[in-house]
């Protein structure tokens, strides 16, 4: 009950998954949480050293929570200097660390509200473009200077060459006419004053029509390229091959004109400098540069690495998640002492569908045989296996596909006896490889109950390659466990499936709700997701399981009407839908197309599979996409009927209907 002196959990326990946001983590914390993805997977041919040395700009693409910021920040100077200090004792030797790496990372993030303030107030787009260019150059220049200052103070760089050669040249560059010798602090203060000019303009332009008249204006490349150039010319250590790696995060927040400025830098990047951009999918608002006739092109001007895609398809992903979880669990004394640091043991590695099925059917065993209304009790008996309702469901499926009950019974027996016959092999293939999960969905449907989502394996699928989702799933299930069964969690290090299921559903619902908040297209995307989720749900209720676990769709994006295509791109940008890595056939015999899935985090909400089977994809027309985005409660049946009536679609041959229990 509520009273004082009860176990105050705050003293010894904290939800290990509660703190999460690399943006707010200090360098030491980032380092302590860092799990190198390079240990588990190869990023499409990119190694860790390529991040520093590859001359071509790289764009890292991934949704919120995929770990992009953690990734970029890891390579930034503040984190790398901490890493260097772990390896070497003296500052001068840290230089070796950077030489070996091949570069120094300069992390840059300009938040959305700031970027959006460079617009409107009656000022023309071109004027804002100049002002933002000036601002961006100053911000990046300042970042360079701040890091070089630190390197000098830590005696990693030679103080003499810096003060005698480097600083005077920088002074001149930023427009200091004074001959008096200055320090890093003076230069930073000078840059800060120039930034203040921009801030004052942005504040006052909202009240009166004023013009921006800085003391000295900076154009593109004037600081972003010049400062590294001067460093190479004047600081001996930079002649040894240390690159300037500019790490720009959340590039999708840059408005189109602002992206043009950075695109120009990517295109005309000079030796010794390179860019690593972190961005959401479809984050490019434009490929143009400052000159509207010029644009950047993937492959020629930059390389693209997709986080989610890599993480989803790579087998190393699960190990990656375990490692991330381990680091967090180890920080909780209680778990550390008891050795409860393996998340796959706490959640159990995989679902136990047979147990789940037994629990589901406990109160009314055999109800699923109502699906076979025309069979005699004797025939039903042949199909029974009281120990395993899923096996019974498979038997029902076979019978509905016109296999005789005797044959079904024979196959079942041979499989259960472990015999090596053709019948047993086919039975096993169908049960284990093809239909088990589908049967579970169907069974839940029959009993008017919901399929549960639990286990580490399920959570890793639900997270859809987005580490943030996985952490949120864990946070919620630990929260439920702490409330509902504290003893089991603290004494045995276990969380029950029912608590994991609640977490999965809450997180799915929350993420679905948040779609509505996506800028500009939130309403369209919410409707689209709900409608397509319901469509997939309809397939999952198909008693014939013609297309097991259907949860992907194909569409020719280019043919979609512009407004809805933009919304579709926003859905990709925000990971509401995810594109499968390569073009595929929507179903056997069809032309290759882009295949998409809805983010699997929504699977519990719609009670659909969290896996991607391949095989059948629902083919949507551009009109379908528009309908799904603009209408509420689109009925799945008309779309399925249309697809059924198409040539070569054999769904109609089974005469199947959706369940309407």
């Amino acid at each position: 009950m509520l009273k004082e002196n009860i176990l105050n959990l705050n003293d010894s326990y904290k939800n290990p998954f509660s703190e999460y946001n690399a943006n707010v983590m200090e360098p030491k914390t980032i380092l302590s949480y860092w799990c190198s993805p390079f240990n588990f997977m190869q990023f499409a041919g990119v190694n860790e050293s390529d991040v520093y040395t590859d001359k071509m700009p790289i764009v890292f693409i991934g949704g919120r929570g995929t770990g992009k910021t953690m990734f970029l920040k890891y390579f930034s100077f503040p984190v790398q200097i901490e890493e260097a200090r772990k390896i070497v004792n003296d500052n001068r030797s840290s230089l070796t660390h950077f030489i070996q790496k091949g570069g120094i990372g300069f992390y840059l993030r300009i938040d959305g509200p700031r970027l959006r303030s460079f617009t409107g107030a009656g000022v023309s787009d071109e004027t804002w473009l100049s002002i933002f260019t000036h601002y961006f150059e100053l911000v990046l220049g300042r970042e360079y200077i701040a890091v070089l200052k630190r390197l000098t103070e830590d005696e990693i760089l030679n103080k003499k060459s810096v003060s005698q050669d480097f600083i005077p040249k920088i002074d001149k560059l930023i427009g200091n006419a004074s001959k008096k010798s200055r320090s890093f602090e003076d230069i930073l203060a000078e840059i800060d004053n120039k930034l203040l000019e921009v801030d004052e303009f942005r504040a006052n332009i909202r009240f009166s029509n004023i013009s921006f008249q800085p003391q000295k204006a900076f154009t593109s490349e004037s600081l972003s390229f010049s400062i590294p150039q001067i460093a190479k010319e004047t600081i001996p250590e930079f002649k040894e091959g240390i690159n300037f790696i500019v790490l720009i995060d959340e590039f999708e927040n840059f408005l189109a004109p602002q992206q043009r400025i950075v695109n120009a830098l990517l295109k005309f990047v000079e030796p010794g400098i390179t860019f690593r951009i972190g961005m959401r999918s479809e984050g490019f608002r434009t490929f143009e540069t400052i000159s509207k006739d010029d644009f950047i092109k993937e492959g020629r001007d930059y390389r693209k690495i997709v986080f989610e895609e890599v993480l989803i398809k790579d087998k190393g992903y699960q190990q990656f998640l375990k490692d991330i979880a381990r680091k967090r669990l180890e920080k909780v004394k209680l778990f550390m002492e008891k050795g409860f640091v393996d998340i796959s043991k706490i959640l159990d590695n995989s679902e136990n569908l047979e147990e789940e099925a037994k629990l589901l059917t406990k109160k009314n065993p055999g109800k699923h045989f109502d699906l076979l209304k025309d069979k005699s009790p004797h025939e039903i008996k042949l199909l029974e296996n009281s120990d395993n309702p899923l096996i019974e469901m498979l038997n029902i499926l076979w019978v509905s596909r016109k296999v005789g009950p005797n044959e079904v019974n024979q196959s079942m027996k041979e499989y259960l006896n472990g015999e090596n016959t053709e019948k047993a092999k086919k039975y096993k293939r169908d049960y284990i490889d093809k239909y088990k999960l589908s049967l579970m969905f169907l069974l839940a449907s029959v009993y008017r109950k919901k399929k549960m989502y639990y286990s580490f394996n399920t959570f890793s699928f639900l997270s859809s390659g987005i580490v943030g989702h996985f952490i949120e799933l864990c946070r919620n299930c630990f929260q439920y466990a702490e409330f509902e069964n504290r003893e089991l969690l603290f004494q045995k290090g276990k969380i029950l499936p029912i608590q994991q299921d609640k977490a999965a559903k809450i997180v799915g619902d929350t993420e679905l709700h948040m779609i509505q908040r996506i800028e500009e297209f939130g309403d369209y995307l919410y409707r689209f997701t709900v409608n397509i989720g319901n469509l997939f749900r309809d397939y999952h209720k198909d008693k014939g399981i013609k297309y097991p676990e259907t949860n992907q769709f194909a569409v020719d994006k280019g043919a979609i009407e512009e407004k809805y295509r933009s919304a579709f791109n926003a859905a990709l940008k925000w990971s509401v839908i995810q594109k499968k890595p390569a073009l595929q056939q929507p179903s056997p015999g069809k032309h290759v197309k882009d295949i998409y899935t809805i983010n699997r985090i929504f699977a519990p909400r719609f009670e659909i599979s969290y896996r991607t089977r391949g095989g059948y994809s629902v083919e949507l027309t551009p009109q379908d996409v528009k309908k799904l985005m603009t209408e509420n409660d689109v009925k799945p049946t008309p779309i399925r009927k249309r697809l059924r009536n198409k040539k070569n679609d054999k769904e109609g041959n089974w005469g199947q209907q959706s369940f309407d229990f």
Partner: protein
Amino acid sequence: MSSNSKIKSSANYLPSEEDLKRQIMLTSAIVWKHELTEQEIEKWLSNFKGEVFSNSEERKLALWLLANFVYYNNEEVIHLCKTLYRDFIHRMLSERQNRVVDVKSTIREILDTSRFYYTGRPGESGAFVLYLFRQGNSLPLDNFIYHPDELPQEISTIVFLDDVTLSDGAKSQAASYIEEAKNKHFKNKMSVLLTFIATNKAIQYLEKKGIKVISCIVLDERNKCFSHESNVFHYFHDQLDNCKIFAEHYGSKVKPLSPLGYNNCQFIFGFFYNTPDNTLPIFWAENNGWYPIIKRYDKNYAKGKYIELERFV
């Protein structure tokens, strides 16, 4: 109410049990410092045996009330102490506004001529609140009355502290305590009562008696659980009467004389250190085999009645 004549309830329109438990879980995690678990909730729910409505309906009504319970944890109580102190200073300053030349020195003057004292007897909550008040505002000990009969001449204001002042008229304990104190020790001094929570009626009653009241939280009809203005049933207005019947039925099993709280206050709040008996007894009662969800420490008014100590003393 016999189980044979159960009233029809529409508690099905309340949020689901799962949603209510989730709301309570979050409240427990953030406000109640994880002190409530599902097991304890289930134990409490087992008190309700389906004597008025069906079991599931009674569970929902109980959970709805629990979800609306207001619990003040220790940080919040300290904040109330700080708020009270500032409200007191503000009130004193405002009353002298025209004469204030320098705010700082006027504050000093106010504090130099005021002394803080508890309401009620030592061992009651007023004294505890006084301690928290001193701590929370880092006030010097000298500002607190030690020997009530030895007050310096220049003291003009006695500031009484209490946590709740909910009753008016003859039932007003605050009025009787303060008047007794005034008559015994503090004649001709201005009396101010600082209280965390008070009702409008209590404030009006005390002010008529010449006691200034400063309260952080003033309760009105919206806070009476089963009043028609009640915030608890603002959305589910049609649940109000049934819920009242439910609470009264079980309340009368544990507190027959005040099934809906002392003086029929019908409140649903409590502090980390105690729960007032004006709160619905279904939350805190412990007699007749009732399992409480919130602790209340009753006052032991009996003379010479002590708990039995253990074997080794």
